[in-house]
């Protein structure tokens, strides 16, 4: 009898694997033939990924149908042949293994619907967006090239390399642009661009060494910057102090010879001291303002420039310049997004752009929703910084007073990815894993997005899981009771049966899902007239009904006999 059990398992598992593979291949070729979007022209690998994931998505969604189909075929035909007709055979020999396998398959299906399918859905959306960006970047690069804006064109091509570093089309374009650019430089004898001073990578141990090098090179201002930084870390080092004093003396000497005005020199030292104080206090806005004004006045003082860049680096963590967003203005994005924030404003954003995990917002209108609604304020730019959208019109850093925090910051209930995808509530809903649904469904609904509350979502998923179990088990029991064990069915009839049974499996599953939705619909009446307690929510209601049906169908299945 062990052999029969093993055979049963083999038939069921091979069947599911085989049918699954055929289904996957079918959808792969179908989707591959029907996906013809211009956005996929630049990076074909993204298209392949989208096709692959879309076919997987179809396969996982049809997973219950595949199982029902295999059970239908097995119990009406495959498990009625040969050894299954021996006298020693009992129904329990096939019922127990197939029942156990079904339970495992239901568990796998739960995993698919709770985690795999939403993750794949999210990936597909991300890939689609990436291919849109690459397509637009390619076109934009060509546009810049025609206008002879070669640096911009190269920047645009570099965007494509972010997604595919060995993209042939992009490489060709890159070479062309580079060639044209070099010929232009040669013909015009263009002046080489002034070398920009890069901010040193902050390794505390290196400050002293770098300072010494700069001192030897007679770059006293840069050396002063490094010594000052190093002094902050090693206050007791005599060698460092001595070098610092020497460097300071040299700087003062040079400054004195430059300005020849003692008062101005004092003023500069005082202002710099002030700037350093703010920098130490982590008041980067003021520190930046001071060093920026000093830099404008004394562009030759390298230490001032370096201090200014240090302050700016810190500022970029909490603020941004609108000029940064101008680079992304031509990017494709999500348009006309509307949502509520934590401060009760209604926000309408004309465009959201995502690039390198940064989110940029363009043309933001904020409304205060009252009975006499009116527009409160308009901002041109916004960037996602520290869990909020920092808003801005001017191209400068400025500190927001605590009183005005809600004016210059949008604090949404959810992250920017979900805001962007709220353009379609269906897409938003489909990419939520079970973890997201429990964490985010309330914030998403508070944002105004029309998505299913968590218990309603769970009830709908219950329909899928129980649908698979109940339909598979009922149809297996039914097929077993109607099977013919005395003769092999005629080939034509068998062929017809094989053609019709996938359709039967699919429609039975779909009908069960419809039935589940009707049951969900009846909950409102049940809640209104029978049990009014809030605790008896839709999930418990549906679970009770589904459990009752599944117990009845299990009894029906397990009570089948061998004749």
């Amino acid at each position: 009898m062990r052999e029969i059990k093993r055979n049963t398992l083999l038939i069921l598992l091979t069947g599911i694997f085989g049918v699954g593979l055929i289904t996957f291949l079918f959808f792969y070729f179908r989707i591959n033939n029907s996906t013809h979007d211009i956005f996929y022209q630049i990076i074909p690998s993204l298209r392949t990924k989208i096709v692959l994931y879309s076919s997987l998505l179809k396969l996982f969604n049809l997973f219950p149908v595949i199982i029902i189909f295999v059970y239908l075929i097995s119990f009406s035909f495959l498990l009625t042949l040969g050894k299954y007709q021996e006298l020693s055979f009992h129904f329990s020999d096939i019922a127990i293994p197939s029942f156990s396998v079904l339970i495992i398959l239901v568990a796998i299906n739960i995993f698919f619907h709770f985690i795999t399918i939403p993750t794949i859905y999210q990936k597909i959306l991300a890939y689609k967006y990436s291919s849109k960006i690459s397509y637009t970047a390619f076109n934009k690069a060509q546009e810049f090239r025609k206008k002879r804006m070669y640096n911009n064109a190269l920047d645009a091509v570099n965007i494509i390399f972010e997604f595919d570093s060995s993209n042939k089309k992009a490489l060709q374009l890159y070479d062309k642009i580079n060639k044209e650019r070099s010929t232009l430089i040669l013909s015009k004898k263009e002046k080489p661009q002034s070398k920009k001073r890069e901010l040193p990578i902050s390794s505390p141990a290196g400050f002293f060494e770098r300072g010494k090098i700069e001192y030897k090179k007679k770059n006293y201002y840069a050396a002063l910057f490094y010594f000052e930084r190093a002094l902050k870390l090693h206050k007791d080092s005599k060698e460092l102090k001595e070098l610092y004093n020497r460097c300071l003396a040299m700087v003062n000497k040079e400054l004195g010879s430059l300005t020849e005005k003692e008062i101005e020199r004092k003023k500069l030292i005082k202002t710099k001291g002030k700037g350093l104080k703010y920098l130490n206090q982590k008041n980067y806005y003021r520190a930046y303002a001071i060093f920026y004004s000093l830099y404008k006045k004394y562009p030759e003082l390298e230490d001032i420039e370096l201090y200014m860049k240090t302050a700016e680096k810190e500022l970029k963590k909490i603020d941004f310049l609108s000029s940064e967003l101008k680079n992304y203005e031509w990017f494709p994005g999500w348009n006309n997004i509307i949502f509520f924030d934590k401060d009760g404003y209604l926000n309408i954003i004309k465009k959201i752009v995502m690039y390198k995990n940064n989110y940029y917002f363009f043309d933001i209108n904020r409304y205060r929703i009252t009975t006499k609604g009116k527009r409160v304020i308009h901002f041109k730019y916004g960037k996602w910084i520290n869990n909020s959208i920092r808003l801005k019109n001017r191209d400068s850093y400025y500190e927001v007073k605590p009183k005005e925090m809600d004016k210059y910051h949008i604090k949404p209930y959810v992250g920017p990815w979900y805001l962007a995808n709220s353009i379609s509530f269906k897409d938003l809903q489909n990419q939520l894993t079970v973890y997201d649904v429990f964490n985010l469904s309330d914030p998403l609904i508070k944002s105004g997005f029309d998505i299913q509350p968590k218990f309603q979502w769970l009830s709908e998923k219950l329909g899928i899981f129980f649908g698979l179990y109940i339909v598979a088990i009922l149809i297996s029991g039914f097929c077993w009771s109607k099977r013919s064990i005395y003769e092999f069915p005629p080939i034509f009839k068998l062929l017809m049966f094989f053609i019709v049974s996938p359709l039967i499996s699919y429609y039975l599953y779909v009908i069960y899902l419809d039935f589940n939705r009707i049951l969900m619909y009846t909950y409102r009446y049940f809640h209104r007239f029978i049990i009014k307690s809030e605790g008896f929510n839709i999930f418990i209601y549906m679970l009770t009904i589904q459990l009752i049906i599944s117990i009845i169908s299990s009894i029906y299945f397990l009570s089948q006999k061998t004749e």
Partner: protein
Amino acid sequence: MKFILYLSKRILLLFIVLIIPTAIALVSYSIIRLGIQPYNVGFRSIFNLAINQLPIIIFISYILAIIFSIVLIDKTKIENLFLLHIPPIIITMVILSIFTAFNLKSRTEKFFITSNSKILVGIDTFFKRGVLNDFGNKIIYVNFHNGKLISFLYDRKTDYLTYIKKIKHASNGLLLYPGNKTSKAGPIKISYGDLHQNSYFFKGKLIRNYSLRLEKLAKNIKGLYYRLGRYDKLIFLSSFILSFIIFIVPFSFLINDGAWGTTGLIGVALILAILPFFYNFIFTMELKYSGLFSFFGKYSYLVCPACFFVIGFLMDVFIKLFHKAEV
């Protein structure tokens, strides 16, 4: 003669019995498809709706009665296949004479319209409170604060936000009054069709697809019917019903006869499933190639009934020739 009377009586009884469930199904359908929760609708509204839909209720129960009677009849009782056509024709005449006698003629104009103008329901019927209700490009927000309406409409296409002062019912839709006094434009009308919100029930794929098919069929027939003059309408309607009988009788008989191994209620389900698709197909073909059938002259609208007449007649002949032994 005895057989004809037997079948006529059976069809008539079934027809009367089927009116009530058909009415319930149809009224519930037209309420739920608008996303209206049935408990929000009063009894009077439901009654009004049923009265408005009386012609279509009668029509559907009449079709069902014919199909049920012929599919479920004991085929050994059938003496002559052609006799099967007579009872449905008799019943049709009876129904049509009742129609004229009770002056229901004026309602025939509304034959294929599901009128909802008399349903009186609250705002919650169409909108979820406190959520952006997305109807394609239009987003409508409705909420109440201290009993006062807070509402706005955002048009994604034009990127324009309009505040709504009040919402009223109009025929087959809602009127949204803009709150902005300077706005010279009048109220914005949004039809019930645009406000279609997915209720749980009609998210159901199968039911939804089927109902869409039916709606398409009604649209097709309506399109043809309203183009006609007064007398042409009469000719079209009577020829259409006649062709339907000629077609449906052998078709139902074939199902009963075990041609595809289906009998009884499965046969009825099969006919109901196939019928809208089949009729839609013929109508689409007719609209596409109506120019080719010039021999009908100004009666070109008769192409569709003629098609069904021919198909029905061929089926009759087919049954007569090949199923003679069984008949």
